[in-house]
């Protein structure tokens, strides 16, 4: 149930971004624009969008009476390594799960279809290798 409610809210956010501002809700692009283009005319809405996302768990906690579930797998070293890898990947791949997987697929973009297929398949293969081939 929470999966469907959460998914609909994600979709609603994507539709609001397009309907109000005419923009794709691609989080990697919004984050990159906020960090690397501080003098861009687009900066303020991007920063405001990210601020809205950051306060979301606080609203969740106030509404539900408990904080959202969170468990970080792996070491700090793995966090840093995978953060670097994701940063490189989304820059060359021009998007992440939100930009390609939700907004792009909803527009039937062929680039997003390929990108989503590739990153989902590689993520599943990666977990298979780490948990069942070398781990487990």
């Amino acid at each position: 149930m929470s999966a469907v409610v959460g998914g609909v809210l994600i979709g609603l956010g994507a539709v609001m971004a397009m309907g109000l501002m005419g923009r794709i809700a691609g989080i990697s692009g919004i984050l990159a624009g906020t960090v690397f283009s501080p003098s861009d005319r687009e900066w303020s809405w991007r920063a405001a969008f990210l601020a809205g996302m950051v306060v979301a768990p606080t609203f969740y906690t106030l509404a539900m009476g408990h904080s959202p579930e969170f468990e970080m797998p792996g070491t700090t070293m793995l966090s840093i390594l995978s953060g670097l890898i994701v940063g490189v990947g989304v820059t060359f791949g021009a998007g992440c799960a939100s930009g390609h997987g939700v907004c792009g697929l909803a527009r039937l973009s062929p680039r997003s279809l390929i990108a989503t297929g590739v990153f989902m398949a590689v993520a599943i293969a990666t977990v298979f290798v780490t948990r069942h081939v070398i781990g487990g």
Partner: protein
Amino acid sequence: MRNIAALATGLVFGLGMTVSGMINPAKVLNFFDIAGAWDPSLALVMGSALITTAIGYRIVFAKGAPLLTGRFELPTRKDIDMPLVAGSAVYGLGWGLIGYCPGGVVPALGLGRPEPWIFTAALVAGMAAARFARTRMVAAPARG
């Protein structure tokens, strides 16, 4: 006005990520683990997000223009090139290693824990490195 709309939009989007469990890397990894502790619920998240967006986009595009700005800014490229495929593969590797995507980690910054900040710092560093590498590639003359 545009910034208030963006703040509200980010809040709705972030609440979706929070409610669905996308901000919890352990849950995301279990979704990818189809041969083990598979948690199929994130397929419902992606499915319902996609259906909502597809329907909402149709309604919004039918209006002809966004409410607060002049026009829709949409990616126009249709070609499948090497950076798209290789970049997406690299992203999938990182996502599968830790369970974090950019859309999941940004709301997690608001949890008041250090781990999401460490990941985000590395994410931005990776983006900076890739942007630098890309300018060098474009600047260098093509060789064969």
